């Protein structure tokens, strides 16, 4: 292509690019066809199945690393074509892998974090499938996980919007399948299935925006390929700015769906119905960041449309604050993290919206580390609680102390925890590291990336800066609250008292992620000479990749606010105080100490501002009413009962009756029968002539002859 003249230095592995997709596909096919048999026959079956899936993801990571090494020598990257896909007239779409610094960053995150989560899942799912009573689903889980890696790789590596869309829909499908993994479980036996459906439907709304954008892109640019579009974009911006505005806003709708931003974020908290590794991989580290990647990928269009940039920033920063406040009022350990994820995605979206693409991608990477870590650790906590609960239930002495409600025990409710610091030491430490990283306290990864976003915002978008800083305050607060409620104080239930630490296969990935969360910031320190990540992305984003600067007041302020917020959290939820609070009899005790101070506001936070209820009232109920009206009145009563039964069937009956009785019986049959009757009557008459007497015949012949002769003679 266009880099033949590039100075050749360092090894080149660009042609391996398709293998980032092939490896997971091979893994999933293998497990699909042989996994079941392996699970049945071998005692180490789960390790083999999980190992193969992890190996597939790991090989994908290896290829990503090789691509990254290649990019070191050839930073301009390469497009690796694989096959033609669609060739219709002007529409030429091919399968081609865009290997550049931006896509390889995503590949490394997806396959790297993905591999760790695969390994973790071997240990996690081993217990999860037994806890949920269907060990045969172990294989299905890993098939879906590999499918997800493959789809996500297609998403990040495509060199055109259509290939990106294939990945976009592929990860959506995997998300749906994995949220509904235990589809027969959940509230009323359909809770998980409903959550999966909600994710699917909400994402469809976003995908609708994406599709509109894609159609407009083809209409405007005549192609889907990134580099052609980006070359033409400035020209189009001059001649047809409306089209670009439409494209960017529609892409934003897609982003709000996939990356769980206002107003389409509602599916993500419900998506926590999936097994915890899924929450970590799909709903925290990778899939939900696809929207951020999309905006960063389309950077060269977005910088041409300031209106769209404004809207992206607005959506991101409002979501960041909105979700961070909700997280304060949650009791489910995973729900807190879910709202935290929405909030952090808001940071990233706001960053790429305001043109700080490096900061956004940087936060994406560090967030993938510490949020995956937090989710995986929460999974470890939940299984520790389940182990404790199991222990209590099978110990006759302890079981007596259990007050009857053994079955509605919720291992995810933080109020049931407490004191886990002693019981689960490794999990506690890694969780703490993740929480500090998320809270944005230096020198952990989260501080550097978040601070870069804040620094960029403080320069041009002061309103976004204020919103994001407020969100950061809440972030530090809810993480303090969570850490204190889960790990500090005394155990508040027997299950927590007997919680057990997870095995090494679960904790090892946690430790690796903890190290990454601790040192992840090193890839892009905001000091001269340390902007490796910015320089790395510069090869793809060009002038739009500006290295973040270190603005001391911003950094100091955000650190100070985070520390204050941690102190506030400590003051409200410290072990002594929370024990006093817990000692109040359950009937008089409010659900949270914070309620005493902000009462009704707390109610709003706890109920997520009633957004779900609002959506029910504004969209879903009218929609259901409309569907019911269409089904009952239009379809059933009008169409089926009236039109179909009365008009068509009745009319047809009438017509058949007319045809049968009047036309067939009355006309055709009557004619045929009448002919028969007539013939019969004539025959009866004629029979009289046939007397059988010879003399009669002779006479008639005689008379006949006389008449004929008479006629012949007399004529």
């Amino acid at each position, binding site marked *: 292509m266009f880099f033949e003249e590039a100075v050749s230095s360092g090894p080149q592995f660009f042609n391996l690019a398709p293998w980032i997709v092939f490896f997971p596909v091979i893994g999933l096919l293998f497990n699909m066809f042989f996994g079941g048999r392996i699970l049945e026959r071998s005692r180490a079956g789960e390790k083999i199945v999980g190992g193969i899936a992890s190996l597939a993801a790991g090989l994908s990571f290896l290829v990503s690393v090789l691509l990254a090494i290649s990019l070191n020598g050839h930073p301009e990257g390469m497009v690796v074509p694989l096959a033609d896909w669609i060739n219709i007239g002007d529409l030429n779409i091919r399968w081609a892998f865009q290997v550049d610094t931006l896509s390889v960053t995503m590949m490394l995150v997806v396959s790297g974090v993905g591999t760790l989560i695969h390994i973790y899942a071997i240990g996690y799912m081993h217990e999860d499938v037994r806890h949920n009573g269907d060990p045969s689903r172990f294989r299905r889980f890993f098939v879906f996980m590999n499918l997800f890696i493959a789809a996500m790789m297609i998403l990040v590596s495509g060199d055109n919007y259509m290939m990106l869309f294939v990945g976009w829909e592929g990860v959506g499908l995997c998300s749906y399948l994995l949220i509904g993994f235990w589809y027969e479980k959940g509230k009323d036996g359909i809770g998980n299935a409903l959550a999966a459906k909600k994710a699917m439907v909400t994402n469809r709304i976003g995908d609708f925006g994406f599709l509109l954008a894609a159609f407009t892109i083809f209409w405007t640019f005549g192609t889907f390929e990134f580099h052609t579009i980006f070359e033409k974009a400035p020209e189009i911006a001059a001649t047809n700015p409306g089209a670009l505005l439409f494209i960017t806003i529609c892409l934003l709708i897609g982003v709000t769906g996939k990356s769980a931003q206002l107003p389409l974020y509602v599916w993500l908290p419900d998506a926590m119905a999936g097994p915890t590794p899924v929450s970590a991989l799909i709903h925290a580290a990778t899939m939900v960041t696809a929207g951020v990647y999309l905006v960063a990928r389309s950077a060269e269009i977005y910088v041409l449309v300031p209106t769209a940039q404004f809207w992206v920033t607005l959506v991101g920063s409002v979501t960041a604050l909105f979700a961070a406040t909700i997280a304060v009022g949650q009791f489910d350990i995973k729900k807190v993290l879910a709202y935290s994820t929405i909030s952090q995605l808001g940071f990233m979206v706001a960053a790429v919206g305001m043109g700080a693409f490096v900061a956004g991608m940087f936060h994406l990477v560090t967030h993938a580390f510490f949020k995956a870590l937090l989710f995986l650790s929460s999974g470890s906590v939940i299984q520790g609680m389940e182990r404790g609960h199991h222990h209590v239930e099978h110990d006759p002495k302890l079981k007596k102390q259990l007050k009857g409600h053994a079955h509605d025990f919720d291992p995810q409710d933080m109020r049931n925890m407490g004191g886990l610091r002693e019981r689960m030491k490794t999990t506690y430490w890694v969780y703490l590291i993740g929480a500090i990283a998320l809270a944005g306290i230096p020198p952990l990864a989260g501080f550097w990336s978040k601070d870069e976003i804040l620094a960029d915002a403080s320069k041009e978008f002061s309103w976004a800066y204020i919103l994001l800083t407020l969100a950061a305050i809440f972030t530090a607060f809810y993480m303090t609250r969570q850490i204190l409620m889960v790990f500090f104080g005394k155990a508040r239930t027997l299950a927590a008292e007997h919680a057990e630490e997870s095995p090494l296969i679960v904790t090892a990935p946690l430790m690796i992620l903890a190290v990454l969360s601790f040192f992840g910031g090193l890839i892009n320190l905001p000091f001269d000479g340390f902007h490796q990540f910015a320089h790395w992305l510069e090869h793809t984003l060009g002038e739009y990749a500006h290295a973040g600067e270190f603005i001391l007041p911003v950094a100091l302020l955000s650190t100070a606010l985070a520390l204050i917020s941690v102190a506030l959290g400590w003051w409200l939820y410290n072990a002594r105080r929370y024990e006093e609070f817990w000692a109040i009899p359950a009937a008089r005790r409010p659900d949270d100490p914070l309620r005493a101070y902000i009462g009704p506001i707390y109610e709003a936070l706890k109920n997520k501002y009633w957004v779900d209820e609002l959506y029910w009232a504004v969209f879903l109920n009218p929609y259901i009413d409309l569907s019911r009206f269409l089904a009952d009145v239009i379809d059933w009563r009008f169409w089926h009962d009236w039109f179909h039964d009365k008009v068509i069937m009745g009319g047809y009956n009438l017509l058949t009756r007319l045809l049968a009785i009047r036309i067939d019986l009355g006309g055709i049959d009557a004619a045929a029968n009448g002919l028969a009757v007539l013939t019969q009557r004539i025959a009866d008459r*004629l*029979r*009289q*002539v*046939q*007397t*059988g*007497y*010879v*003399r009669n015949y*002779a*006479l008639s012949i*005689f008379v006949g002859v006389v008449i004929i002769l008479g006629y012949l003679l007399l004529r």
Partner: protein
Amino acid sequence: MTPIQYYTALSAILFTIGALGVLTRRNAIIVFMSVELMLNSANLAFVAFARSFQSISGQVFVFFVMAVAAAEVAVGLALIVAIFRTKHNINIDQINSLRG
């Protein structure tokens, strides 16, 4: 030479007698004889005209008529014998098995 009119008159008289015999008599044998009479009246007319017009055709035709008459008599008498055997009677007014 006897004029042709005499012959035709005689032929007509014989034919009329035969026809009346066929129509009026009940005995099958008599009816048969009357039919023969009618045939022979026709023969007479043929022969008379053949001689009058000096044409051989009429005379030849007479031979055909005689041959057919002979065959008819053979079949007819056989039928009458067969009927007599079953009905012991040859009164044609009592034979109407072919009534329609």
